């Protein structure tokens, strides 16, 4: 994939994530911070499909943005064909792992499989 496409995705995910993370944080503040973290409150959030969908989207956006940022930093620190391939594929693997792990949580709670 051309670097310009990767960086456009990097910027796009950043802008989209800002809005959605703001909603996620506001949910903690509108209810009262400590109350919003109680078990029943959190379960209710996960069970509400639009909110669960939003969390899934945040997970994907921030995983892509975060691991691409890490890839950029690591590529600048050391160069070489093998190392660069290892960094790129390693970051993609880490990204997918995190998305799968987080999605598992969201899907299992949303469908009542806890």
């Amino acid at each position, binding site marked *: 994939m*051309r*670097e*310009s496409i*990767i*960086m*456009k995705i990097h*910027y796009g995910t950043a802008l989209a994530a800002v809005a959605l993370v703001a909603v996620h944080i506001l949910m903690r503040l509108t209810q009262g911070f400590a109350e919003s973290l109680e078990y029943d409150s959190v379960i209710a959030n996960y069970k509400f499909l639009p909110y669960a969908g939003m969390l899934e989207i945040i997970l994907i956006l921030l995983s892509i943005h975060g691991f691409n940022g890490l890839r*950029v930093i690591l*590529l*600048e*620190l*050391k*160069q070489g064909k093998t190392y*660069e391939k290892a960094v790129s594929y390693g970051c993609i693997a880490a990204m997918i792992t995190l998305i799968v792990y987080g999605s598992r949580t969201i899907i299992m709670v949303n469908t009542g499989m806890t």
Partner: protein
Amino acid sequence: MAQTSSLADENSSTPLSSQQSIILRIARFNPEHDSAKKFMEFNIPYEKWTTVLEAILEVKKHLDHSVAVRYSCRQATCGSCGMIINGKPRLACFTKISELNSNIITVEPMNNFPIIRDLAVKFERLFDTHHKIKPYIIRDDTEITPNTKEFLQSPEELEKYIQFSNCIKCGLCNSACPTMATDSSFVGPQALAQAYRYVADSRDKGKDDRLKIIDDSHGIWRCHFAGSCSQVCPKGVDPAMGIQLLRGYMLGFRS
């Protein structure tokens, strides 16, 4: 290692009668037999107008003629005398001792350039990256083709790129760049600014060629707009501006 403070008694073309003096610390390193750089100190008198280059040449003339330093025009035109002066990349001929506000002046070879000896560094990488972005007008026809026998350009069109054509290839920007500090494959602010110089030139038709060259994992996208290149440029080229304007083409902000 401190040297004797008084200058040799000989006929000098420049009478040095100043009461003020500074300690000039020069980094000495010969890769052929030194394992690490060491500093030698020299006590040099100076006037309000004395430049760092003049101080180094005083050392060469009277105290230690083996100091290796590159210089030529002495007027910030050739770009030969770039070095780290008190921690920042500067042209030695363009930096007055009085403006540094310090009694100790430390001069070292530019970072991110391999050292030949002492203050002289190799410029091959800068030349290679500069060459990579095709620093010439690209078009199919020549000046002979149109009736005007030249490629006409209005003053407004000239204004769009003239500042970037001021580049003297001194390498200070490459030395200051945080990405160049760790990335051996990065194209560098000098080459990217020159890429913009040609892309912005109305006579040039090679924009797509150049954008393709710099659209690389170690190309324009490894610039993070730290701006250090523009902070140190002695000719007002402002490479950071050129790079961001160039990136505007790739992000769709400019067509």
